[in-house]
């Protein structure tokens, strides 16, 4: 970006400016403390023994040998869990450590604390577990009809969404079956943390997470102690993308620290990380779209099946999103959608950026393209014809009262003329220079896709954030438990505070459970709205208190006062006082902020379940060598509905970064699971886009229509970039190859038909 302001002093960065990150300097110097950098003089190292089998009975678990190793301080198992044996975000069904059975490959079985990680590894190897293997349930299609693999059954949630006429037929009907593979969040900073036992019987946990207070609730329950005795402080987070919404090593660390009465640190290896957090749900989707001869959608029928893996995590909310947004951002008068998420012995799945809407976007956008073909219509026109707008109904019957510039995102994206230059460099060919793609054979494809999802938590969840603003001597201190995971809330919190209080210096206190109430999760594109809203409200209360104080002390009407650049001035210029002086006696406000209430879905999947929606479109250009099956994503263009742009540079970072994860899912990223076992649990074998894989992302339009009810009119922007990018890339590959390609990621063998040798 050429419009980045670098010469302006930091103090002037307010709402709408490209304020730099307050943690930028330590991050570029290498001094920012991530959770894996934590250190304590007396600390031990922790480790986890995991099941090698996706389904097995534990017949014997003997830790005697491990305990004898010099330097081992403790070995703990299921029997040592002091409180509740199971935990979970929505539904507690996941054991802290396996008791009689293991239900997925990688399920924790025992934990160790020792002097050195190498001793930890030796101790883990010395634990003797006798497993009796069972046949794993790995096919989600049969999960509903076979015997239960968990006392809570094999169906996490089933939604039968019925909207309008259930029988009406369209003159034009298109049908398809689509699949989405399991994607990993692949954050770079591995799961890690440090637990320090407290003298009061409690514990201090420093950990990378997305939601401190939900962690605290679950950890306290499993430890069998009061919530206030578990004090969680956010440690530096190396990316999250949904994978840190569930507990990982939290309870284990606390158990080890409390048992040994020593601080204990744990870091997952990359391989362990692949087994230690939830993934994006793999999906199988059947769709039938009905339209009239003019291309107006008449009805959508769909069945969406998600594989939730062994434990519930947030599966219930993911399938609700998949069902509610199954049709895409279109006007669909009639629909019947069956959404089901089931339990299997595959790796547990849960939150990942886009949360259910990514999977269905790949399906509904393929259907819209099929409809365009059936009608001999332009794919952009067919989308524009059906585009949702304010006042339209969703499949849930909810009327969109906020902004919904769907036609605008599609049109701007479709019309944008790319500025990038064609490259003749061999490195730019599919497969890069090391392969043998022939320029003569390259086929180019281009396509557009559009998607949407809800912002914030839905279905009647009491969704709130908390913040404290403290103003003293002209310095504002903001305390909020919002987990900064890289998204830039810390920047925004400073911008909001400067905007409202007119102060220069804004200090951000650590995010911790001890000092402030819950901020809710850093997920669902919700923190700009929710914690941004909480900070705004806290600052406004302090501002009011400050003005009231001045009004009382100086007999000036509050309406005559303004805050400008560190001063409180009267409009007529007769009075001024510095904010420093006016706040010598400190002022403070402690607030909770809630969005407008939502309501549960009824038995037909109908109801005002959501608060607000954000929309984005992507256009992809790809080059394919059809003989080699190699794909190069040449270019992405995007338009996004943001409500109001609060920080241009940070917003672009979200649009580019989210699109990269979408490209990954389209052409390279899949957790390969064979008979319940992850086959590629490493960055050698699970490939994420490098700088050579990722095309430039051209931003056609950042669309600003302030959202009613949103702080500053701004919508969350984190997830939409990951929703339609995958669908656009696979559609472009279809254009280039004339293949149906009903599955992502598109594999080499999906493009090249490999002849079976006998």
């Amino acid at each position, binding site marked *: 970006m050429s419009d980045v302001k670098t010469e302006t002093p930091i103090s002037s960065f307010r709402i709408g400016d490209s304020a730099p990150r307050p943690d930028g300097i330590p991050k570029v110097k290498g001094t920012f403390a991530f959770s894996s950098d934590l250190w304590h003089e007396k600390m031990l190292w922790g480790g986890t023994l995991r099941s090698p089998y996706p389904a097995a009975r534990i017949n014997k678990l003997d830790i005697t040998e491990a305990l004898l190793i010099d330097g081992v301080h403790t070995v703990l198992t299921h029997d040592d869990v002091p409180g509740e044996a199971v935990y979970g975000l929505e539904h507690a069904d996941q054991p802290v450590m396996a008791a009689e059975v293991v239900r997925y490959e990688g399920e924790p079985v025992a934990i160790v604390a020792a002097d050195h990680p190498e001793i930890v590894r030796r101790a883990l190897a010395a634990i003797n577990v006798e497993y009796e293997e069972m046949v794993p349930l790995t096919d989600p299609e049969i999960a509903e009809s076979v015997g239960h693999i968990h006392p809570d059954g094999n169906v996490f949630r089933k939604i039968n969404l019925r909207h309008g006429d259930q029988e009406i037929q369209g003159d034009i009907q298109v049908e398809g079956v689509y699949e989405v593979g399991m994607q990993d969040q692949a954050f770079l900073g591995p799961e890690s943390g440090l637990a320090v036992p407290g003298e009061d019987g409690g514990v201090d946990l420093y950990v990378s997470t997305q939601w401190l207070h939900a962690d605290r609730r679950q950890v306290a329950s499993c430890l069998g102690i009061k919530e206030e005795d578990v004090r969680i402080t956010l440690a530096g987070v190396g990316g999250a993308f949904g994978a840190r919404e569930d507990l990982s090593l939290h309870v284990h660390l606390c158990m080890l620290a409390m048992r040994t009465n020593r601080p204990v640190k744990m870091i997952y290896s990359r391989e362990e990380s692949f087994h230690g957090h939830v993934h994006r749900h793999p999906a199988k989707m059947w769709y039938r779209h009905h339209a009239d001869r003019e291309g107006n959608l008449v009805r959508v029928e769909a069945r969406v099946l998600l594989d939730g893996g062994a434990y519930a995590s947030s599966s219930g909310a993911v399938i609700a999103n998949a069902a509610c947004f199954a049709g895409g951002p279109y006007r669909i008068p009639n629909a019947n959608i069956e959404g089901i998420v089931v339990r299997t012995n595959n790796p547990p799945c849960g939150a990942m950026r886009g949360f259910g809407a990514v999977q269905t976007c790949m399906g509904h956008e393929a259907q819209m393209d099929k409809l365009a073909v059936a009608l001999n219509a332009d794919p952009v026109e067919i989308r524009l014809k059906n585009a949702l707008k304010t006042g339209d109904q969703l499949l849930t019957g909810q009327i969109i009262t906020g902004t919904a510039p769907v036609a605008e995102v599609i049109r701007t994206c479709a019309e944008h003329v790319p500025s990038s230059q064609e490259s003749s460099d061999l490195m730019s060919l599919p497969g890069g220079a090391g392969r043998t793609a022939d320029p003569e054979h390259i086929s180019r494809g281009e396509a557009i896709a559009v998607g949407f999802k809800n912002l914030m938590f839905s279905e009647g969840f009491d969704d709130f954030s908390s913040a404290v603003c403290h103003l003293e001597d002209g310095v504002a201190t903001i305390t909020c438990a919002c987990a900064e995971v890289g998204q830039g809330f810390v920047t925004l919190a400073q911008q909001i505070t400067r905007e409202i209080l007119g102060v220069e210096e804004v200090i951000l206190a650590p995010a911790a459970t001890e000092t402030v109430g819950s901020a809710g999760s850093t997920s669902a594109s919700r923190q700009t709205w929710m914690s941004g809203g909480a900070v705004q409200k806290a600052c406004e209360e302090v501002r009011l208190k400050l003005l009231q104080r001045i009004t009382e002390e100086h007999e000036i009407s509050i309406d005559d006062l303004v805050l400008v650049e560190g001063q409180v001035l009267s409009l007529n210029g007769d009075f001024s006082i510095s904010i420093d002086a006016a706040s010598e006696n400190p002022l403070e406000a402690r607030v909770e902020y809630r969005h407008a209430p939502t309501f549960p879905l009824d038995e037909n999947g109908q109801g005002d379940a959501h608060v607000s929606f954000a929309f984005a479109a992507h256009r992809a250009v790809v080059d394919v060598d059809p003989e080699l099956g190699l794909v190069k994503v040449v270019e992405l263009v995007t338009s996004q509905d943001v409500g109001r742009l609060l920080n241009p540079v940070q917003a672009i*970072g979200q649009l580019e970064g989210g699109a*990269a994860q979408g490209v990954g899912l389209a052409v390279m990223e899949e957790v390969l699971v064979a008979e319940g076992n992850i086959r590629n649990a490493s960055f050698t074998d699970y490939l994420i886009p490098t700088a050579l894989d990722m095309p430039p992302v051209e931003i056609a339009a950042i669309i600003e229509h302030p959202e009613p009810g949103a702080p500053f009119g701004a919508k969350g922007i984190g997830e939409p970039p990951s929703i339609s990018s995958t669908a656009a890339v696979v559609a472009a590959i279809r254009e280039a190859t004339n293949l149906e390609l009903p599955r992502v990621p598109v594999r080499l063998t999906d493009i090249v038909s490999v002849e079976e040798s006998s």
Partner: protein
Amino acid sequence: MSNDFYTLNVNGKDHQVADSWVGESLLWVLRERLGFPGAKNACEEGECGSCSVRIGEEVVCSCLVLAGSAIEQDITTIEGLSAEGELSDVQQAFIDAGAVQCGFCTPGLLVTIDDLLEKNKNPDDLTVREAISGNLCRCTGYGRILEAVQMAAASRRGEKRE
């Protein structure tokens, strides 16, 4: 190690490594024994580049280097890029361009890019992409990072970039 200690030269200063186990990687020794946590540990198998440091004239993944094999060589870590406390041009460009999000890949990228710009003051887009293709970033999609490299390259050439 049979000896009580060995010496590593990190960012121009000698550091003694005492009581270490022979199998420890340079990454481990830097992070856990010598107090240089800037090099990061995202994969520990040489794929992600987050542990990149320079040994002599070569950027390496410190997770793949045995610490003992780096004796008598000049090791430069991220902490050595702003030795005097002043940010280097690349570090400043990362902040200005918005190339930092979670920041976990940042130290490794900075070491790699600093090395690239020492050797090539005018790298084109593809050259930069290839140079940093061993450094994974999951947050940014690389766009702002590429912009930061060009900003820093322009400043090294003495140009003012608009």
